[in-house]
């Protein structure tokens, strides 16, 4: 009869909120170019690794918007281009891939 309590607990604790993930996808497409988008987890997504190249002028706003999501995340930011900065690679990890 239905899921065990521990299964439900794990689903609650680790499943990423789809609405929040959609928000991140929209933001990523709006502020830059998505280079990698790898969701993990079966049957529900419990982790996501993504790389996005963002316009340098939009990075601040992009991070601000990320802060407003209710997801736990880790990000790395790498400047791209020589000699002038022509993009910022934002490497993001959400959920179960978060260390």
């Amino acid at each position, binding site marked *: *009869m*239905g*899921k*065990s*309590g*521990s299964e*439900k*607990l794990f689903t*609650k604790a680790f499943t990423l909120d789809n609405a929040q993930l959609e928000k991140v996808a929209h933001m990523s497409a709006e502020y830059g170019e998505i280079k990698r988008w790898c969701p993990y987890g079966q049957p529900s997504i419990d982790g996501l690794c993504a790389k996005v190249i963002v316009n340098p002028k939009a990075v601040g706003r992009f991070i601000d918007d990320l802060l407003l999501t209710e997801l736990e995340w880790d990000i790395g930011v790498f400047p791209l281009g020589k000699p002038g900065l022509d993009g910022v690679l934002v490497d993001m990890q959400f959920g179960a891939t978060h260390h």
Partner: protein
Amino acid sequence: MTTNDEQCVTLTGHSRIVQVHPTRRCNLMCRHCYSKSGPKERDVLELPLLRTFLRDARAEGYDVMGLSGGEPLLYPHIGELLDDARARGMRTTATTNGTLLTEERVAELVGRLDLLAVSCDGVPDSHDRMRASPGAFAKLDTGLEVLRDSGIPYGLIFTLTQHNLDELPWVAEFAVRKGARLLQIHPLEETGRAEEVLEGQRPDGTEGGYAFLLAHEIRKRFGSDLVVQVDLVASRHLREQSERFVGSHAELHDDAPLAELLEPLIVEPDGAVVPFQYGFPRAHALGNLRRAPLAQMAVHWKLKGRDALAAVRRRAHRGALASSDETPVSNWYEAMRRAAS
């Protein structure tokens, strides 16, 4: 036997407990009730019988009386019984469904109880479903406010099933918000009404193991605000501290106090005195208070019943160890009940 005896010490100390079920009368018919208690039940143990029992129990080394039921707040002599226990130097606890905690009833308990344990089986909907009573949670919620104002120390008891571990964090937060000092996590016993209507919902080893881990997290989160007790035993303890579980106390003579040999001791509503747990197989009962006082039963049991129960302990320990590779925790009293059946 619990997984964190050292933490329980803060509330109950090193206790020798008699658990008295003076009635099966109850205002509810909970689905998980191990004693099939309900509003139609009328059996009540007479006060003089229990007074004599307490006298003998104290002489045999027991120092805590826990009242359960049925609903102990419906036992007509609850105040006198608690007074009697305290007058004999025993500490007192009671377990209630929490729906009858009116100001009048709680006022009667002030100064008579060292701890009141109140059942809470999950979020409001789940609680009401388990209690088979819409509105049971609302009454509990109101009752806890009355209890908090009274100053009686209290805790919540959460019955763990195969399907409700995910509600435990909510119950822990609720406990702290309401000022409870203890959260006891007790695995469902598939006896009584639970055997009929909750078949297959006893938590398996996986749920027990996760309950163990979750209890650890809750302790870390709330620290000294909430003592968390899980009524399960880590398999590691079964292996490493086997004497604690199978100890025959052979070094103790027959005139050793009963409490050194057998704890907890249970009095059921028909007067039967059994070891360890309500509903323990009657083949191991010490006797019935309506036929003989505890003092007399104890003498007889030390001579005739002690070895049989030691054999049950050994069988239970072997059985629990055999499954310990598969499950990280065991329900020790359940294992003993199975071994005794």
